[in-house]
């Protein structure tokens, strides 16, 4: 067996049938006047194009050149996008030069907490505060008043949620300490969801009412009317006489107090609720602690209805 039988790509052996067959491939001679024909063609051949301006030596740098141009173009586009605010619209964070330098040098400050981050945008408009002098009689002053109210409302909402969370935890701890059954995580989650939905519903209600009131106030201010502090407050100040009534009511025995409670007008009821809120605001941080209320009437009896958070 020859090599060629094993490997069809092996060199062609001289004298093999294939080599003999290929040997028959005769080539004709060049024609006699071929050289003159080439010379004549060379004479009439147009001049070759001039060499490229780019030297051959520089060819090897073409790739590097292209990479550099691409990087520069990308940098220019990115800078333009950052300068025009496009990246901000696309929610792409653009670190400041100081941040980048701090990250490089390792002197970066600790990342701000989420609360601080949330507070930052709220603090931003403070630079453009509008001073409210006397009654509110311009749209700017009214807008500033609304902004302050919104800030207070937002803080209250946060505080309310924190209190709710703390109360739930305290209640669970109390029950656990007392050996009572405590809600499972699923039950606790359901409770929290229910409370949250109630909170949201309440806030939506309040927002709707507030919006209507604000529109009314805006119309008044645009009409040239000046608004007092009491006009802007969400509720009118409680009548001192009513407050005195409430104080008397607290001193009644529970049965009589309940009877008197039913006889109260809606305004009186609202005043009562305000009183409860004010007392809560001044309550100690731990709601689970026994109330040190100076009121002679036990607080639970005065509460008109349990809050959704409770």
């Amino acid at each position, binding site marked *: 067996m020859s090599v060629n039988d094993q490997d069809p*790509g092996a060199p062609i052996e001289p004298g093999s049938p294939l080599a003999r067959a290929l040997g028959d491939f005769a080539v*004709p001679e060049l024609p006699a006047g071929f050289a003159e024909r080439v010379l004549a063609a*060379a004479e009439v051949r147009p001049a070759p194009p001039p060499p490229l301006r780019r030297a051959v030596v520089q060819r090897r740098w073409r790739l590097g050149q292209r990479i550099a141009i691409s990087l520069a173009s990308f940098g220019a586009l990115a800078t333009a996008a950052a300068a025009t605010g496009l990246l901000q619209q696309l929610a792409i964070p653009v670190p400041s030069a100081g941040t980048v330098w701090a990250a490089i040098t390792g002197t970066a400050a600790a990342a701000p907490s989420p609360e601080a981050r949330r507070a930052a945008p709220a603090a931003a408009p403070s630079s453009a505060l509008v001073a409210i002098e006397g009654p509110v009689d311009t749209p700017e002053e009214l807008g500033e008043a609304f902004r302050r109210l919104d800030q207070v409302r937002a803080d209250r909402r946060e505080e309310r949620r924190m209190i709710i969370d703390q109360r739930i935890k305290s209640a669970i701890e109390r029950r656990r300490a007392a050996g009572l059954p405590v809600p499972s995580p699923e039950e606790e989650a359901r409770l929290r969801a229910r409370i949250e939905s109630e909170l949201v519903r309440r806030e939506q209600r309040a927002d709707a009412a507030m919006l209507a009131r604000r529109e009314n106030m805006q119309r008044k201010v645009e009409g040239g009317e000046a608004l007092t502090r009491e006009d802007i407050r969400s509720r009118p100040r409680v009548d001192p006489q009513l407050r005195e009534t409430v104080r008397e009511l607290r001193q009644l025995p529970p049965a009589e107090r309940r009877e008197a409670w039913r006889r109260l007008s809606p305004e009186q009821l609202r005043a009562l609720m305000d009183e409860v809120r004010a007392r809560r605001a001044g309550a100690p941080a731990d709601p689970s602690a026994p109330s040190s209320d100076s009121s002679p009437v036990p607080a639970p009896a005065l509460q008109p209805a349990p809050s959704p958070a409770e």
Partner: protein
Amino acid sequence: MPVAPPLAPAGDEAVWAARLAQRDPAALRDMVALHGRALHRLAYRMMGDAHEAEDIVQEALLRLWDHAPTIAARHPVGSQAAARLRLGGWLQRVATNLAIDRLRRTRRLCGGEVPEEEDGAPLADAQIEADERDGLARALVLSLPERQRAAIVLTYFEELPNAEAAEAMDMNIKAFESLLHRARTALRQAFAAQGDAP
């Protein structure tokens, strides 16, 4: 077997290049005399047509005429670069590329497909008849794809070492050897298909 052109002493090729750069017709005539026949053999075996082969040889020589100033500038007489200059190799590379380009252009214009890989199927009757008319060897070589054909022509007919043949085809040596292996395989299969095993 081919008659190798007389090798010029080291540096003489640079002298010819310098003369061509100075537009010396006698230098071009020397180039035709020195390399014309070898180029014609190469082109004819690639194309299978005498007129096409002459055109390729003429075009290769005229390209040398065009590029002579650049070549002479890169290989000044007496320099180390001049000792490495081989105008014959340069012409072979140009002629090979011209032939491959023409074959590809012809394939595109004809719309037919020249297989890149070997095809073991026997040829059609009409093709066999045409091949018999032109000669078995010619038919065998022309049945190869253009690059395989160039590899066979350069190494078997022109007896170039693999390295020089690879240089003439602008390939690295490993790729050329792979191509040559496939070319020989295809050639043997075509020969076997003719009814005569190697």
